[in-house]
């Protein structure tokens, strides 16, 4: 299962670097592509950085009618991101969020990658691929601003946030030969 997580992350990271090499964040003094696996980071109270994709893994189970000792599995994945826009006034925060939406959809295509063992260098091809569904983009939520009762969605906040959910399918790690 860890190979699936690693392969998914590496696929999206490489695609993000190719698509927009300037999309970086600085964490712990290190500048890196703006895609982060939350469970791999230091446990600190700092808030997530803006304009970056945070990957979080959820429940996993066998796929119906594909089950078996080594059948196909699925695992839930949530990718969240937020922005304050690119200017001090924040008036382009909606556009900045839309750009992040498009970046995420772009790096999720094609919706597959080979499963590799990244615990060794160079990584080793494990013989199958992982695949995933098209991300479902949740509603936009806004925060860090006074709620305007005249706007029912409440997403006029200075900080605009969205999460995307998808399912990743994979064959669990086994020796299949």
């Amino acid at each position, binding site marked *: 299962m860890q190979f699936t997580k690693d392969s998914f992350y590496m696929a999206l990271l490489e695609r993000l670097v190719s698509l927009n090499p300037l999309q970086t964040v600085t964490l712990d003094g290190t500048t890196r592509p703006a895609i982060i696996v939350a469970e791999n980071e230091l446990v600190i109270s700092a808030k997530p950085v803006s304009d970056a994709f945070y990957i979080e893994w959820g429940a996993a189970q066998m796929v119906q*009618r594909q*089950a*078996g*000792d*080594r*059948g*196909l599995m699925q695992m839930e994945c949530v990718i969240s991101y937020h922005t304050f826009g690119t200017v001090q006034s924040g008036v382009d925060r909606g556009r900045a969020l839309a750009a992040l939406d498009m970046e995420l959809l772009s790096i999720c295509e094609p*919706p*597959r990658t080979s499963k590799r063992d990244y615990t060794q260098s160079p990584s080793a*091809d494990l*013989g*199958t*691929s*992982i*695949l995933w569904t098209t991300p479902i983009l949740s509603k936009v939520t806004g925060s860090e601003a006074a709620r305007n009762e005249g706007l029912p969605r409440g997403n006029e906040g200075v900080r605009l946030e969205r999460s995307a959910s998808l399912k990743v*399918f994979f*064959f669990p790690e*086994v020796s*299949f*030969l």
Partner: protein
Amino acid sequence: MSTSPLRAAMVPVTRQIRAYFAPINRVTGTPSIFDPGKYGAFLLDAPPAPWLDLGWIDNFQRLCTTLTEPLRAGLQGAPSVQFRGSIDARIEFDFREWGKLQMALACGSEHMNVLASDPNANAQPSGGTPLAAIAVLPGSTSSEIVLGVGAVSAFSVGDVVAVDADYQQQTGYVGTGIAAAYVSDPADVNRDANYVRRVTFNLGRVAQETTTSLLLAQPLLGGAPPAGASVQKVVAFVDRDGGSFFQEWSALFVWQEESGGRVCFHYPRLSPTTAIELSMPLSPTAQPRAVKAFQREEGVEIAKPISSLALHAAFQAMLHVDENDGQTVVCYRSYFPAAKAAVY
């Protein structure tokens, strides 16, 4: 459901299937061949020539009604050998994209280009008397149509154009590169000089203009314009229920591999069909027992009342003789095992 261990690399996992077609030389009956040894792992966005990408398709079904019949022997009448009866295979699917080729294949008969009409011409359901054609000059290619200074202004960027020869009162198949129709008698087509351009597959959309040329967004399907070709603007496509002509094409369908190996189906010769017999007669003289009505278009609901339209298509697989062993077959299924997959 089995709970036995699966050998994962041997399980083809797929999401969608893509259709590619290639023309058959109708004069010689020569199909286009997909050689899995040469082209098997091609990029789905870049099929090898002469295969044309017709996009993702839905509801793909391969229907085989070839009967195997046992020959019985002995007091108990037990099967001793068996043989194959009449070979019969069909396919059905929905084209999700509409275009010249998709419409022509789904309809199955002549597919008409509606040429821009003379405003004073009599109305005709497949297009009336068109505006005069403009001669194509030497030096034209499948992507650049040379018309000369001034003549280019008859067209605009974004126009669809038909580029082919005038009808010369010949009989037989017409259309440059791809047989688009069959003319038995010039009188049938009113000896119309524009007839070939009414049916040709040699179409393109004007992407740019120079002072002397039209530059096309996609190359002409039938290749460079023939000598004496002319060009006319196309405003729509029309197909018809009826007609005597049958399209016949080679086809290739590829299940895109998500994990595991790639599966392809190659039909050297496909001919469009409509009604599908739900139960085939057991002998050639028996009557068909049931027929499923053929729905030409399928609505794919987006959100009521919005839906997209898919073109429903069905084909009869026609025979092909495999030169390697002389066997008569109608379809090839090829499988490209994934790396590291067990052989069996």
